[in-house]
């Protein structure tokens, strides 16, 4: 395949051409309630070409029929020539990589019978259903894939990779009369069949939480000291800060560049943030990004100060910085854009108890239903919460939605514990119509001195 792609590259008359081809085998088994909804095996394949003529814009083409490879290279060339751009697009230098990089398949899912995958997720689904009569519905999904990946570019890069992925997800819905609550379990790893084993307890806990939430009051809206558990702290840093550190937001916008000037203070000295696409076996891990740049551990905030950002080759060239291996594409249907990989808050000191000891009234926000950023404003929804009263964890509360302004909130992080862990959740990140891109986050317990918690507002 690499030879075929290299031959197509040679015929391109553009100044820069790159070609990606992917062939993905995937299986998915879904249970809804007691019913197996579907069990399918799919094969998806296609290619992507991106072309740049000097002084012109990007010409891109994607296609499912590989017979069209040569004609789509030509078509992308025409599209590039149709677009004139001034000042011209430049790409930062990256030493061309040539690699055969099969990630650890960890029990190749392609060798496991669909019936075995069905049995596995059936057991996890059963663990949720067995918790209580109050569990009226479940959704349990097993999904795996192995993607064979080829990448070449005109500067001599040639990559061949095997990328595995396995995700398990469970939703348990508990109901009593008009009250409906849910609990989520999610596991997502760039690994294989072995890592999909032994997850019953997580699924059971999700169902137990949904049932417990039926009796929980809605958190009373207002401002509180808030402690984020590592899972939610990870989602928080991804949503509240990670997206702003993506250089495609700032690189051509002078006001945004000013707002995100390196050296600006974003937090207290306890705060360290980074993004590490090279960490082992995590959901956002890859040896190279989709421009052939090696992934790396990039420091973004060091001791409260902005020190770096995430780049593609184009954004790095424009800003005079170095590519960081963050140009990622969801699939051959999409161009690479600047994305996060495994984003983290660095470890602090002490324990969870140290964070709550002097809190008279606060909220311990745990787990994540989701989050969204609108640049300086963000919102994220905890799976559940507990009140903190007089230095102790107290009653369960629901509908804990944290809303805030990035700059104020980061600056209010005043204590970070020493209990860092990576999230191993499935799901993913959405941007510019490319969703869900596999990413993950990691963090220790984090305290925000004061944050707005949405909830019941007294009239």
């Amino acid at each position, binding site marked *: 395949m690499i030879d075929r792609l290299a031959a197509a590259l040679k015929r391109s008359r553009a100044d820069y051409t790159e070609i990606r081809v992917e062939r993905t085998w*995937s299986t998915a*088994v879904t249970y809804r309630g007691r019913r*197996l909804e*579907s*069990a*399918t*095996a*799919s*094969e*998806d*394949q*296609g290619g992507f070409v991106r072309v740049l003529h000097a002084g012109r*814009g*990007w*010409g*891109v*083409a*994607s*296609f*499912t*029929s590989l*017979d069209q490879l040569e004609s*789509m290279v030509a*078509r992308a060339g025409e*599209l590039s020539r*149709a*677009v*004139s*751009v001034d000042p011209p697009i430049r790409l930062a230098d990256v030493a061309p990589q040539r690699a055969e990089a099969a990630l650890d398949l960890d029990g190749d899912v392609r060798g496991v019978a*669909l019936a075995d995958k069905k049995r596995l997720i059936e057991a996890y689904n059963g663990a949720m259903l067995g918790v209580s009569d109050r569990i*009226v*519905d479940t959704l349990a999904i097993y999904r795996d894939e192995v993607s064979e990946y080829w990448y070449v570019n005109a500067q001599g890069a040639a990559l061949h990779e095997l990328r595995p992925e396995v995700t398990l997800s469970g939703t348990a819905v508990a109901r009593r009369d008009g009250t*409906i609550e849910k609990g989520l379990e999610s596991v997502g790893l760039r690994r294989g069949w072995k890592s999909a084993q032994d997850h019953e307890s997580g699924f059971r806990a999700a169902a137990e939480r949904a049932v417990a939430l039926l009796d929980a009051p*809605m958190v009373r*809206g*207002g401002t509180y000291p808030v402690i984020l558990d590592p899972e939610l702290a990870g989602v928080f840093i991804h949503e509240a800060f990670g997206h702003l550190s993506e250089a495609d937001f700032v690189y051509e*916008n002078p*006001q*945004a560049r000013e*707002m995100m000037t390196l050296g600006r203070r974003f937090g207290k000295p306890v705060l360290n943030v980074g993004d590490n696409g090279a960490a082992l076996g995590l959901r956002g891990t890859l040896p190279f990004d989709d421009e052939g740049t090696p992934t790396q551990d990039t420091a973004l905030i060091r001791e409260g100060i902005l020190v770096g950002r995430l780049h593609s080759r184009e954004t790095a060239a424009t800003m005079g910085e170095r590519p960081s291996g963050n140009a990622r594409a969801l699939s051959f249907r999409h*161009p690479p854009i600047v994305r996060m990989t495994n984003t983290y808050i660095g470890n602090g000191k002490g324990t969870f108890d140290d964070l709550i000891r002097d809190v008279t009234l606060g909220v311990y926000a745990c787990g994540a*239903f*989701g989050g*969204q*950023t*609108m*640049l*300086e*404003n*963000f*919102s*994220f*929804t905890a799976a559940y919460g507990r009140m903190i009263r007089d230095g102790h964890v107290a009653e369960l509360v629901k509908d804990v*939605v944290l*809303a805030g302004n990035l*700059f104020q909130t980061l600056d209010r992080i005043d204590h970070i514990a020493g209990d860092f862990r990576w999230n191993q959740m499935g799901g993913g990140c959405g941007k510019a119509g490319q969703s869900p891109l596999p990413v993950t986050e990691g963090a220790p317990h984090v305290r925000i001195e004061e944050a*707005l918690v*949405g909830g019941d*507002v007294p*009239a």
Partner: protein
Amino acid sequence: MIERLLEVARRRADGGADALWRRVERTSVAFEWGRLKAAGATEEAGANLRVRHRGRVGVAGTTAADVPPDDLVTRALASAELGEEIDLGFPASRPPGSPLPSISTFFDRAAGASLDALIAMGRSLLERLEREGCQVNVAIDRETAQVRVANTSGGAAEYASSGVAVSVDVWRIAGDDVLAVGDSAETADFPGDDVLAALVASVNTRLDRALRIVAPPEGALPVVFTPSGLSPLMLPVTQALSGQAVLQGISPLGGKVGERAFDARFSLADDPLRAGRPSSRPIDDECVTSRRTALVERGIVRGFIYDLETAARARTQSTGNGERGIFGKPVPGYTNLVLGVGGPVPGGAASALGGGLLKDIRDGLLVDELIGVGQGNVIGGAFSHPVALAYRVERGEITGRVKDAAVAGNAYELWNRVGAFGNDARWAGSRWASSVLLEGVSVARR
């Protein structure tokens, strides 16, 4: 292609089969921060096959054009082997004399538009949106598709469609204040000047009103949700009106057909036969002829949307809402959602912001976009979101944009506290709605 698939499937699956083949071509241009940066082309084709064998249903899909039909059928049968039994029938061909509904889905002017025409449209939008201290992104996608659906009961249909999607957003960053105002228009035909003018006016009006920042109000207040701002109120309702949720026992509207659950002025229908809309189609992805489905009429729940499988399980008929990708099985999905207060509402391209609902508000909010809609326990109806774009309304007038405020409530309760519907109905994506004034919405500030 799917005829051969079905031929093989008929021999090997005792309960029949159906299939969908879809070919899509897309051309797109993207202007980033005021400059044309990229042009793209996509060509994609694939087939999805469903079989029923020994009472069990299985599916398989592929984008590989060279897959032998036997292989795909084998994969679908393997999927069926694990499946649960279901009494699924495939709709036969229509009797002679009952043609497909005549709905135009393909427009030559859209399908034939050159790359230069798309670029010219983008440049014209850029010019009209340009303003000091702001930067503009414009994306234009033109898509044509061919769809063929068929089954072993003799059902078969083919149609072509076209669509143009134009989206614009304007960014203004001043210090640490980030303001983004955007809008989009999706049409089956090439959009006329009226469509583009409405898009420009929509963005400019909301931007002009957003330049001044004022303190948010607080308490239980009258709040006007614009057509696009309605999402947190509509999402729970559309989830609850899906036959899938009803079957699973998680729909708060499940047992309520014939009962009043909403304000008597609230009506909602799914309408795949709306002229000129890219979501319109003469037939669904499972060979069921398209028709309008009343979901709520004057506050009374009338029905739910179903595809073939959820209908079979619920012992009812498909409403023609089968939606099918290349991979996976069909699911019930909406086409065009029409929120109406009875008859057709005049579109208000030139209407003022708020649809005429602001004049009696002494102190309240106008909400255009919230952050995080769709997170959390949506179907239960409760929501709580910070504002992305909202304005304070005082003594009947917009006084400025509010930041650092959150809006909360329960969709089902609020739909029983409707003050009035506005006169500014329009399409927001595939939803047709006007602005709505709701009373007693919780507004919190920091």
